[in-house]
C-alpha cells in the first residue's frame, strides 16, 4: 500500500492510499507513477530520479537509510511518500 500525502492526492484522483505491486521500493514507485502520471510529474526529475525534497518511508523508517529504491517490500508493507511542506505563516 502506498500512502499519498494530501499535497499529492489530487494527482492520485483524490485517494489517500493506492495499492500497487512491486518487489522493491523502486518497482512500487514506478508502478505508482505509471498508474498516476500526475504524481510522477510532481515527485520525479526529468531523468526519472526522485526529487531531493521528497522522502520515502517504508513503514516508519527512512528508505534512504535502508537500501533506498532497492529495498525489498512485501504485501503488508506501507510506503509513505513525504514531500516537504512549507505552510505556516500566510
Amino acid at each position, binding site marked *: 500500500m502506498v500512502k499519498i*500525502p*494530501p*499535497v499529492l492526492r489530487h494527482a492520485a484522483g483524490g485517494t*489517500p492510499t493506492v495499492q500497487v505491486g512491486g518487489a522493491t521500493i523502486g518497482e512500487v514507485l514506478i508502478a505508482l507513477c505509471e498508474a498516476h502520471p500526475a504524481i510522477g510529474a*510532481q515527485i520525479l*526529475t526529468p531523468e526519472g530520479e526522485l*526529487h*531531493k*525534497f521528497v*522522502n520515502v*518511508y517504508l513503514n*516508519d*523508517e*527512512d528508505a*534512504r*537509510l535502508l537500501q533506498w529504491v532497492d529495498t525489498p517490500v512485501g504485501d503488508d508493507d506501507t510506503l*509513505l511518500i*513525504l*514531500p*516537504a*511542506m*512549507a*505552510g*505556516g*505563516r*500566510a
Partner: protein
Amino acid sequence: MSPSYQDLLGQAREVISEVEPSEVAPGVAAGNGPLIIDVRETAEWDQGHLPGAVHIPRGFLESRVAGMAPDRGQAIIVSCASGQRSLLSARTLHEMGFTNVTSLAGGFARWKQNNYPVVVPRALSAAQRSRYSRHILIPEVGEEGQMKLLDSKVLLIGAGGLGSPAAYYLAAAGVGTLGLVDDDEVDESNLQRQIIHTTDRVGMNKGESAKVAIAALNPEVQVNVHPFRVNRDNVLDLLSQYDVVVDGADNFPTRYLMADAALMTNTPLVHASILRFEGHASVFTPYDGPCYRCLFPEPPPPDLAPSCGEAGVLGVLCGVMGNIQATEAIKVLLGIGDTLSGRLLIYDALDMTFTELKVRRDPDCPSCGPNADLQLRDYEAWCAGVGGHDHVGATA
C-alpha cells in the same frame, strides 16, 4: 488529657531521629545527599534556604510530597526554621509510609549560625505566583522552571497561522521575551485561523498586532517586533538574541535559511508546517539530532511547492500544530520530557490520526554531516531556479 505542643514534639522524637547540620553539610556540599524538604512558609524560604533543598510549605506537605519524593524508602531530611515544625512534618511523612526520614536539628537557624552555605532564591512576585500558580504546581516546572521561562527568549518566524497560537500560549506561559518576525499585514482572510489578530487590526503589521494581543494577555512579556523578512544578512544577528526558534514560515527559502542558521548559531529549532488537513512537526537540535536537511536535503522549486494561500488550510489545524510547537519550545527551554527531536509527527485532521516517523542524522547531510559545507545560501534564488547553488540545475 489532650497532648500539649511539647507532648507532640516528644512523641515525634520517639519515631524521628534528628541530624545535626555538621552531618548534613558534606552531602549538601557534594550534591549527593538525601532529599531535603523545607517546610517553612514561602516568605521564610525566600529569605534563604539550604542549597539543593526543595520547598513544600507544611500545609501542602501531604498533598505534594509524592511529586518530590516518589520513592517512600528514599532518605529525606526535613528542615524548618528551628527544627520543630520539621520534626512534626517528618512524623507525618513517617505516618505516610516514608521509612527513612530525619529532621534537621536546630533548623535553618542553626545551619546559618554554623556558616554553612545558604541560597537566597530569586523569587517570583506575589502577582507572578498567582498568575503562574498552575505551572508552579507541576513538579517538572515549579518556581524554578517558571523563572527559567521568564528569563527565556523565543524567536517566532511568522506571526500567522502557526505563530498566532504559538506566540499566544508562550506569552501566557510567561516566556519572558518573544521576537516576532513578520513583514506582512493582517488581512481579513487571515482571521479564519490567525487568532492573535482581530478584525479591527486588519492592515496592521502582524508583529505589531500580535504585540497588542500579548500585552492584553500578559503585559509582563517583552515583545520585540521585527517587521521584515529574514534573509542572509540579518538571520544570524537575529538568532543570536534568542534561545529557541519556532519556525512557522510559509515558504521554503526561509525554512532552509532558518535550518542552516540554527545550526550556525546552535539554536534549537521547533518546526511545524501545515497544508489543508495535514501538519508536520519536529524539533531539530543542532548536532545532537537530525536537522531539517537530514529530512529534506533540498528545497522544491516553487511550481512543486503549493502554499496555504494556494492550497488552503483548515484553520483549526493551525491551533493544533502551533500549540505542539509551543509545547516543544517550553520543553526545550525547561529541559524536560522527550522532545520531537529525531521524530517527525504527522497529524492528519481528516482521519484524526497522529503518525510518527523516525528521522535520523544523515551522514551525507549537506548542512550538518561531517563533510557538510554549511553556509547561508541564497535559497530564494535556488528555489526560484535561477542559480545560487551548484545543484540548482538538477532540481529546479
